[in-house]
């Protein structure tokens, strides 16, 4: 907990010391961190491998973008509404996907995400098709709060969301509900025979995961000012999964670090080569082979030794 407060304070003071472009990068890293952390609930804690988590992000991004463009809803409410929407949609998706297990489950999540991708491409009146939604405004908050309209103000909104989501997830995985998730991860058949309706638990965790992933997407589109089909594309789903695995699955913190690492590396490598993804792929393979516990695993092992 002490470490958590230290990191939170450090992040809160970041705008005082960092130049504006670095703050932009940091804001995006935190948003991606939130997305990766939300996926960790499924992948790391329940062993539900989703190949379609971009669906959560895209749902949130398009929903908040649409609300901000076409209604006068204050920004925090639009973001919240988009997050709730993603969670509610996830209940239906999870109901279908949990009919299958293992690889079939993963394939169904991928299929659903691709379905959403196709919808985003075709539903011109709502999603703007291949142009996407552009010029998404950061509207003033309720009661005349305008602080989110500035870059640093928006950073604080993102930071509060991430820290809040982290504390929420931490409490969730440590609760009786979390203990059942761990049971499902290790031995689903046994968990079922012990009297747990495992499917219901899985649907619940997918809904929570999607709501938080949707929150990340909902924060992204007003930050970037646009939402396009790339946010729902399968490639992005794969990248988020890589962030979780490279960061260290089943740790919540790890995936946040993984997301930051991914962004930083993309930023640095792309200055030297266009095929930065190739090098990132090699790094990913290295992690899977030599450090399956990920970045966070390496850090904590060093600390314990």
């Amino acid at each position: 907990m002490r470490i958590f407060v230290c990191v939170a304070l450090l992040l809160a003071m970041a705008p005082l010391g960092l130049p504006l472009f670095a703050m932009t990068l940091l804001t995006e890293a935190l948003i991606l961190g939130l997305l990766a952390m939300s996926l960790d609930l499924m992948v790391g804690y329940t062993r539900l491998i989703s190949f379609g988590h971009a669906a959560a992000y895209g749902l949130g991004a398009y929903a908040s973008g649409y609300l901000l463009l076409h209604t006068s809803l204050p920004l925090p409410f639009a973001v919240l509404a988009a997050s709730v929407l993603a969670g509610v949609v996830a209940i239906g998706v999870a109901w279908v996907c949990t009919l299958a297990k293992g690889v079939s489950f993963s394939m169904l999540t991928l299929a659903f995400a691709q379905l959403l991708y196709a919808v985003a491409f075709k539903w011109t009146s709502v999603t703007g098709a291949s142009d996407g939604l552009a010029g998404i405004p950061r509207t003033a908050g309720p009661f005349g709060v305008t602080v989110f309209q500035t870059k640093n103000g928006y950073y604080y909104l993102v930071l509060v969301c991430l820290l809040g989501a982290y504390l929420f997830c931490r409490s969730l995985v440590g609760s009786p509900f979390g203990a059942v998730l761990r049971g499902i991860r290790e031995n689903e058949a046994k968990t079922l025979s012990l009297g747990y309706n495992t499917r219901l638990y899985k649907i619940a965790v997918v809904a929570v995961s999607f709501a938080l992933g949707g929150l990340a997407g909902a924060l992204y589109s007003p930050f970037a000012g646009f939402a396009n089909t790339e946010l729902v594309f399968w490639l992005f789903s794969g990248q988020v999964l890589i962030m979780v695995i490279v960061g260290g699955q089943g740790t919540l913190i790890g995936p946040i670090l993984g997301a930051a690492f991914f962004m930083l590396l993309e930023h640095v490598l792309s200055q030297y080569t266009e095929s930065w993804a190739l090098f990132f792929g090699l790094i990913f393979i290295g992690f899977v082979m030599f450090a399956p516990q990920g970045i966070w695993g390496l850090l904590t092992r060093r600390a314990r030794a």
Partner: protein
Amino acid sequence: MALLELDGLTKRYGGVTAVNDVTMRVEAGEVRAVIGPNGAGKTSLFHLITGVVTATSGDVRFDGRVLSGLSSYQRCQAGLSRTFQLTSLFPEMTARENCRVAAQARLPRRWQPWGGASVFGEASKRGDEALERLGLSAVAGRPAGLLSHGDQRLLEVAMALSQKPRVLLLDEPTQGLSVEETLTAVETLAGLFAGGGLTVLLVEHDMEVVFRLASKITVMHRGSVIADDVPSVVKDDAAVQAAYLGGYA
């Protein structure tokens, strides 16, 4: 009224009748063993009772309530806790955590998505009690996957026991154990059953285990019940001897 009643229970897979018109009454407090040669339908019967497969015809009644249509987790919630023929545990959790998760399943706030100190406290209490009764307290802190095979078999019984079941269903509790391990396991189980208060249905093919533990025995052969009585009578039953020794004697 018997606690667990099977009425004309039948399961067909295509042309094969795995369980054929089985009727059986298990009274509260008895230790009932279902025995029979390989392929007699013991495990299929077990699956029918626990809801893993659905019956072609016939009923399972538990405490007067028909269980048809209830899935396996609902039957467990009704009070039927089981173990598996092939050990099924949470290998990365400690023995204590295994029992805690098992006990948690029977608490009303098992799903609570926050805090949970009181839920965990009560579940741990029940789990530790069960570990103690099976003589596993010494290894409670070890990951279940690292326990000896004998201890793993007993841990599964402890998990079922920590749910305070009304009927404890054991699927070949000594499966795959060495001679010495079997002896230890059987003595531990005998001590547990001697304490009374438990209703047990166990499937087993090891005769020595059965005669040591069971107060009543049901013998199955090719899907049907051919004998159903106290051990001393079953031992001398001509049909049973024929089923077990037929073709060899």
